[in-house]
């Protein structure tokens, strides 16, 4: 079998290419186009507010950090632990999130409720809940794995730069002190404790 060769034509360089002038003007034109892009809105004072509408067109730069672009609703930010009605964490320390975590950045120490608590005996709670935000790759698997809607990444905050590594180790108190981007500490899905009159279980009308 003989190798087939295809002879390629060398692209010709025209005088315009050779002088670089035309391309220079084209490039500068693009820069100038962007420079004057927002002028019309500036004159009319009709900017779209990027903090309100994250997908607004017509604006290229922001005066960060005074003005921040809002993140989409489902954007994965820094974690938070949601609260129950009584302010305790919803987390039941099942270790599903730390099992699912590909970066192994979640450490949970489960503990039993003290004697006398109505949840003692069949449910546990996290005595320690630590996330190493430096190790975290923000994949959201922990949120997917959580059966209790206890860990969420809906804070709308990205991990801010801090001046020491220890500050990136978020403990339970820190994680519970971060609200969602709407300022909520609870979750939209209400929790019903077993035995509560509101405990829905499942019923024939609504299904699962």
């Amino acid at each position, binding site marked *: 079998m003989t190798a087939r060769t295809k002879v390629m034509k060398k692209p010709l360089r025209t005088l315009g290419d050779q002088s670089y002038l035309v391309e220079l003007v084209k490039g500068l034109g693009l820069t100038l186009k962007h420079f004057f892009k927002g002028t019309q809105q500036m004159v009319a004072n009709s900017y779209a507010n990027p903090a309100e509408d994250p997908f607004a067109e017509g604006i290229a730069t922001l005066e960060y950090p005074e003005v921040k672009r809002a993140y989409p609703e489902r954007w994965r930010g820094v974690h938070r632990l949601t609260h129950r009605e009584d302010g305790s964490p919803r987390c039941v320390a099942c270790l599903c999130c730390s099992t699912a975590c590909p970066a192994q950045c979640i450490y949970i120490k489960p503990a*039993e409720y003290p004697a006398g608590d109505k949840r003692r005996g069949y449910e546990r709670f996290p005595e320690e809940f630590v996330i190493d935000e430096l190790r975290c790759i923000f994949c959201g698997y922990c949120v997917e794995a959580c059966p209790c809607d206890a860990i969420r990444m809906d804070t709308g905050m990205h991990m801010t730069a801090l001046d020491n590594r220890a500050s990136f180790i978020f403990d339970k108190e820190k994680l519970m002190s971060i609200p969602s981007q709407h300022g909520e500490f609870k979750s939209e899905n209400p929790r019903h404790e077993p035995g509560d009159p509101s405990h829905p279980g499942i019923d024939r009308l609504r299904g699962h």
Partner: protein
Amino acid sequence: MPRFKLDDRELPFEKGDTIIRAAHRQGIEIPHYCWHPGLSVAANCRMCLVEIEPPPGRPAMMLDIMHWDEGKRDWVPAKKPKLQPACQQEVSEGMVVRSQSSTHVAEARRSVQEFLLVNHPVDCPICDQAGECKLQDYWMSEGRQPKRMLDEPVHKPKGVVFSETIVYDAERCIACTRCIRVCDELAGDHALDLRERGNRFEVVLAPGRKLDGPYSLMTEHVCPVGALTSSHFRFKARVWTLRGSPGVCSGCATGCNTWVDADPRENRVYRLRPRDNEQVNKYWMCDDGMMTYERQRLGRVSRAYVGRDSARSEAAVEDALKRAATELSKVPKGKLAVVLSAQATCEDNLVLAELARAVEARLYLSARGPWQADRVLRNADANPNRAGAVLVGGDKVGSLQDLVASVAAGDVQGIVGIGADADLDSATLAPLGRVGAVALFLSHDGPLARFATVTVPVCSALEAEGHFVNVKGLAQGFKRAALPREGVLPGWDAAARVGRGLGLELSYRAAREVRAALQARLQPPAKAADTTAAEGASGA
């Protein structure tokens, strides 16, 4: 040997075997909840139903049923063979059993599985059985269908305290009665029973009783679901993060086979489970034996010390080993005593015994005092390796009492030994304080520890591989379950290093060299059965 046919395989069986036991012998599992190889047959879970073909020339026993016809969108009359519980039906020659290959069996299993899950809370995330639960396993292999019942499940008592160690959750229970049968048949104590019927059943304690006794943890072990949990393990870890390594219980001379479940990330042992061995412990262990894993953490010696009492100070392991050799080299010939331990492995004792032989030292044996024996598993001797220590030490191994007497007579001026256990009280041991050079290799603190002038930390039985010889003379090997602290040596290695420091030819540098030397020693008297290789189906 007679044979029968299970699906497409010809299997041998022994006379009197049930179908499930014959299959279990061959390592084939027929799905089951209530059957356990070590317990009587209850046949109440109906998970092991199989189809048995009629004998030649006889009609099959068929039942009239209504079958849903998807084409007609209606129920139509149909026939179905009468299925038999494999746990109760005896095998006979030439019997043809269909398990995996029968659609009727598959449907029956799916229905049983669905039935058992009707009132189950499905709280797997907070259930400690999750990951080793038969309900989960069989849902994956036999069920795989979402729940169809839309009503609120029946609620029953949760977190019922049966004893300090056992907690019961009636909602998760499937009424297989394994725990009741363990109490009756293993412990001989009818502490548990079942009350009510249908979906209101509940396992209850006898009035005024607690689930105590030496085998209460076995009820938790046989529970195929998360109904019974042990307070030592519950809420501590998830089973999927644990790695089991074959071990041998160090509680007593019976030498029950165990699985040592440790989390490799934390290097912590979380529990022991019985490892099936028909020759030794069958499927069981006693509560005290199950709790011996705590010895990995409690009372550990993890640093080297030189000096005694007020002159005691911490030292590097290397320095302590050198110091031990220096002190022992000053002991006149014939005045050195070597103390083997009935708690240490054969490997550790072997190297120490060789050291003793090389310097013509007399051998003694330290051991723990006796504990409560019974007729099930527990041996009165609370030492796992007395037979092994005597085996490698030879016939002239004296007791600790003899050592104290020799010291009092002035025949001993130096001691090198492993282990700090003693079956004598501290007043009797007091003369040992007169010995000027005492080098001890310790994994745990104990009555002898205070006499040491040099303390060298060594691995515990969970941190090094080794062999124990049980009371019947069976040598059983075990593997390492957790890593020792950095710089901590196995006992044989520390002994060999001290021996080399004394100018002896103890050339052991790897565990396999010691093991080879030990195997040669074990062959004639002990039945050299390395049971670590025989990994039976755990938990059945």
